[in-house]
């Protein structure tokens, strides 16, 4: 019996060390499909994008001519519409990112209760997340319709005059913000709720004993404990806010005029509607750089986070 045990452990040791040798090879082999897909769908297109951005290249007229950085110079120094779209994108981000955080935190606090029946609350948080962005845009467009919309009906109910939500530039901008905040806050709430549930109850009990009010408990315990989750959620939301496209596309299509046109929408129009691939590529490359900077901030944060854990 003793002999068979030694034989087994011997065999185990032999097999494992042999495995260790081939492990690297297998690891690389298992990563290959992922790497190939990434090369084809992300890396190659980005190289193509950067090259095209240096060319004058329109599908509406023949010719593919190298023009150096002219596309970039035009975008940065002459194209007012580009700057207008950039400004819109920035304002959307500045309004909707904190907006989604506040609403999301509120929802998370409301949802963090010992409910007997859990599914209505859970689904209430999941449904906005699962809904396609354009559908949220369409539904909110319906909410904000002048005659048949529920928002103007509510306005009238409390005695306020109905508003031209979609045709007034400022109100349209506001309406789009409301839709974005509604759509993005529930995902925020899910992440923050997971964070809330990791805070030990004993902290609150101790604070209770010390006579701290609910508000003090929130400021002194909840917020500091949630801070890592909040920071990650904020950076993440900012990166997605830079790419805002679907909701304004469905609600206003960038209008009235260009009042709600974002960078992504302008790039889409330049490339697909005007078929100016060279200039569209330059704009998309600018967007890529902006996004890459935001992402590197995010990566540094998550890495520090995991390091701490």
């Amino acid at each position, binding site marked *: 019996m003793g002999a068979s045990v030694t034989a087994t452990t011997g065999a185990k040791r032999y097999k494992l060390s042999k495995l260790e040798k081939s492990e690297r090879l297998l690891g690389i082999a298992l990563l290959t499909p992922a790497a190939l897909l990434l090369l084809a769908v992300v890396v190659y297109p980005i190289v193509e994008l950067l090259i095209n951005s240096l060319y004058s290249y329109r599908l509406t007229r023949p010719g593919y001519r190298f023009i150096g950085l002219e596309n970039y110079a035009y975008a940065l120094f002459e194209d007012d519409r580009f700057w207008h779209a950039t400004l819109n994108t920035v304002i959307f981000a500045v309004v909707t990112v904190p907006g989604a955080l506040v609403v999301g935190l509120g929802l998370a606090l409301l949802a963090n209760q010992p409910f007997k029946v859990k599914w209505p609350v859970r689904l209430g948080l999941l449904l906005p997340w699962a809904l396609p962005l354009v559908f949220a845009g369409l539904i909110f467009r319906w909410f904000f319709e002048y005659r048949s919309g529920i928002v103007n009906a509510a306005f009238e109910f409390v005695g306020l005059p109905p508003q031209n939500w979609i045709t007034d530039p400022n109100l349209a901008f506001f309406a789009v913000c409301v839709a974005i905040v509604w759509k993005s806050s529930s995902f925020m709430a*899910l992440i923050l709720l997971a964070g809330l549930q990791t805070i030990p109850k004993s902290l609150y009990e101790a604070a209770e004993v010390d006579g701290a009010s609910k508000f003090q408990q929130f400021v002194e315990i909840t917020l500091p404990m949630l801070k890592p989750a909040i920071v990650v959620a904020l950076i993440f939301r900012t990166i997605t806010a830079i*790419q805002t496209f679907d909701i304004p596309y469905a609600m206003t299509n960038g209008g009235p005029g260009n009042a709600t046109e974002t960078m992504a929408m302008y790039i889409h129009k330049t490339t697909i509607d005007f078929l100016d691939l060279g200039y569209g590529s330059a704009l998309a490359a600018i967007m890529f750089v902006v996004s890459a900077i935001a*992402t590197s901030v995010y990566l540094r944060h998550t890495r520090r986070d995991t390091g701490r854990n």
Partner: protein
Amino acid sequence: MIANLGKRKTTMLAGAIVAINGFFPALWIFFTSLKTETELLRYPITIVPEDPTLQNYTRVFVDQPILLFMWNSVVVASLSTLLCIFVSALAAYAIVRLRIPGRNIVLSLLLAVSMFPLISLMVPLFQTMRTLGWLNTYPALIFPYAVLSMPVCTLVMASFFQDIPADLENAAMIDGCSRLGALWHVVVPLAAPGVFTAAILAFVNAWDEFLLALTLSSRVASRTLPVGITLYQGEFAFPWPIISAALVVAIVPICVLIAIFQERVVSGLTAGGVKG
């Protein structure tokens, strides 16, 4: 006793606010879809449909190619999910179990891809698909969608794989299984919940995607649901009766899916915590 009752009431109220916030828009569009065109044009508006009718649904199914849009969505979402899960499962396993060089770089790269601006990919992908003659075909969407969900799926599955004791695999290998055999017979069954969770996330991502579908697949016959319904709108007027019914038809499948698997979806979202 009374204080307890009051506490229960506030708890109920808190839950009701969250639920109404989430359900109301979908519910409102459902009410809208049951109203007749005359009721929709009436002023002031009605809340609950006075004379509920299914005529909008008949119009959606008869006059509009909604079943075709749905079929396109199902094909694209399912196939891209399969591809994504296959590729991500292998990658996740390699990251968790095997000592691969540059493990942290791989992880960072995955996070970077999950943040990637789709609009930057859209321009060159449009050009590439045009050259390949793939515009308005399924593969034009399947491959990009598989890659888009790859980061979140890899991270979710990696976090599930991590909890499977390595000893189980070693035992299987001692019993004569190859490494891949151990993966298939031991790890996969145990990892099934993780794989499934990742698959739901990938499916929802693909089902919801709009920008690439609009760009690469805009011909009527190849439109997915989000593109098909959004482009119902004419130049000036929104045909709300049809749009509302179409929205309900498109929302129901995804609602059923997340309602059945809600706990998994939540655990996947918070474990992967990267894509929304």
